[in-house]
């Protein structure tokens, strides 16, 4: 039997994330590793470069808490319900401290993960010509194709370099003890970032028996060979959602701009909901029993498939 990679959130973050590391916390609206972000804040990590295609509330919190000094991203916003004010204050006014940014479009940052995961010197994309981003980000360059274009002429594409985060943290529905991660629904760049990173921490709603994972191997989005730690943390993606487990807490997202706009209110929120709580269980207890009732999905079961073979 494979070695168990189970760890508590506290131990996984303490062991795998060092001050000054580049840490990717991925998730595309779905499966955002919020509890892991809170643990980074609670353990008072410093000088992190935080990476995500779509920084949202938990990145606003990481910036407000002074955990991050740099952010690599391609779209930063709180969906359509308002701004991330801590990030805006840092970028617009250096308040309370500057936040260095390194910015791409979605395909550009995804390409950095793919190049990192595939051990390539760069990843080519057709975007960026004529835009202002390449002048602001020296990591976006052009490269000439060694092959003629369809019209026989020279063809150039833009190139982005590989990204190797020190740590990738992803959230998923379930994994076995060996770190075979199964996720379904909208997956974002989880597989790419897990393979690009030097170490990967998978946070899951539940640890599943080996038989459950092996009954549906195509559902395994990240194999154990790319996972270093498995943390069981139910509802650890709140206020984002986990398909089939709990829906998105849209009320929380709508409430965030008012908290985030006021530095004192944001500091108080971090104290009340992160620093003063020992762990995510305490966070759930503080939300109260029944909190997730309104977020409970209506079941929509998939039909089992037959993986059988002749003996």
């Amino acid at each position, binding site marked *: 039997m494979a070695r168990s990679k189970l760890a508590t959130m506290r131990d996984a973050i303490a062991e795998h994330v060092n001050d000054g590391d580049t840490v990717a916390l991925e998730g*595309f*609206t*779905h499966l955002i590793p919020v509890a892991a972000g809170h643990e980074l804040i609670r353990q008072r990590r410093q000088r992190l470069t935080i990476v995500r*295609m*779509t920084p949202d509330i938990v990145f606003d919190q990481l910036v407000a808490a002074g955990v991050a000094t740099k952010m690599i*991203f*391609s*779209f*930063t*916003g709180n*969906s*359509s319900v308002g701004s991330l004010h801590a*990030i*805006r204050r840092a*970028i*617009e006014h250096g308040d309370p401290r500057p936040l260095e940014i390194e*910015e*791409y*479009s*979605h*395909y*550009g940052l*995804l390409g950095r993960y*793919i190049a990192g995961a595939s051990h390539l010197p760069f990843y080519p*994309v*057709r*975007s*960026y*010509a*004529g*835009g*202002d*981003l390449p002048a*602001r980000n020296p990591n976006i360059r*052009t490269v*000439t194709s060694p092959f003629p*274009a369809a019209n026989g*002429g*020279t*063809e*150039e*594409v*833009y190139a982005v370099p590989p990204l190797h985060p020190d740590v990738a943290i992803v959230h998923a529905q379930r994994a076995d003890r060996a770190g075979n991660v199964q996720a*379904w*629904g*909208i*997956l*974002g*760049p989880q*597989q*790419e970032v897990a393979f690009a990173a030097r170490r990967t921490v998978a946070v899951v709603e539940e640890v599943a028996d080996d038989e459950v994972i092996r009954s549906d191997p195509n559902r395994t989005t990240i194999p154990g060979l790319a996972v270093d730690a498995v943390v069981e943390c139910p509802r650890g993606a709140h206020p984002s*959602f986990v*398909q089939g487990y709990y*829906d*998105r807490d*849209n009320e929380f997202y709508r409430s965030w701009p008012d908290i985030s706009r006021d530095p004192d209110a944001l500091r108080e929120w971090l104290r009340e909901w992160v620093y003063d709580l020992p762990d995510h269980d305490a966070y759930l207890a503080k939300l109260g029993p029944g909190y997730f009732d309104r977020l409970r*999905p*209506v079941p*929509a079961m998939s039909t089992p498939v037959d993986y059988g073979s002749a003996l």
Partner: protein
Amino acid sequence: MTATSEPNLTGCTPSELLTVVSARCLRGRRRVFAGIGLPTLAVALAQATTEPGIEQVYESGVTGAHPPRLPQTIADAPLATGAECILGMHALFGYVLQGGRIDVGFLGGAQIDRWGSLNSTVIGDYAQPTVRLPGSGGAAEVMANAAEVFVVLRRHTPTSLVETLDFCTSPAPLRARRANPNVGTTGRGVTTVVTNLGVLTAADDGELTLSAVHPGVEVADVTAATGWPLRLAPEVAVTEPPTRAELEPLRERIDPTRVYLR
């Protein structure tokens, strides 16, 4: 050429009008890349009226969505429930978008210029912006790779339709080709801009020109609200008011609780 100045001639709200006009523009198109909000409503309305076969692709990788309730974001849980396919990011951006599978991409932005380049990055200077906006996301990819791009603007003002962008997030293919003729950008860029005042359409040279005003809007109102000297199309039509056949499905089936028809 000019419309009457009587108000409320369309019998509907501004967001209903924007949705109906956008849906009409989708005639003949099959695969649409659209975000949440009015573009999603426009695709659903086109599906309910003139284009039953139209398909919407979401940036989250969902194709053939059949959401049991109206999604709140482009990656909301109901989009996955009952969907025909959920692609990974690599397939979505590489195979679908850059692969040239999209007929129309809907984009928004804080600023648009007369050639259809868009800014969704900053107001002011990049290094010390007055307002930091979300950034490109997939917008630069949509602009570069969709066959054409539609823009829906709730408010037509000289600060949103500008002579010069503060930052070019999503360069029009024309601008891209001028900057680097060796980079193959395949699309036509922005061909249609639907605003609360009228419709701008790209001329053959790519410049956005006024092709229609909504009922009750004067041509002069639109030119005054545009930050560049707005050229008129050879004919400036008056938008046909939304019909009952368009408004009924929109109000009763597509967004009955008026999440986006605010």
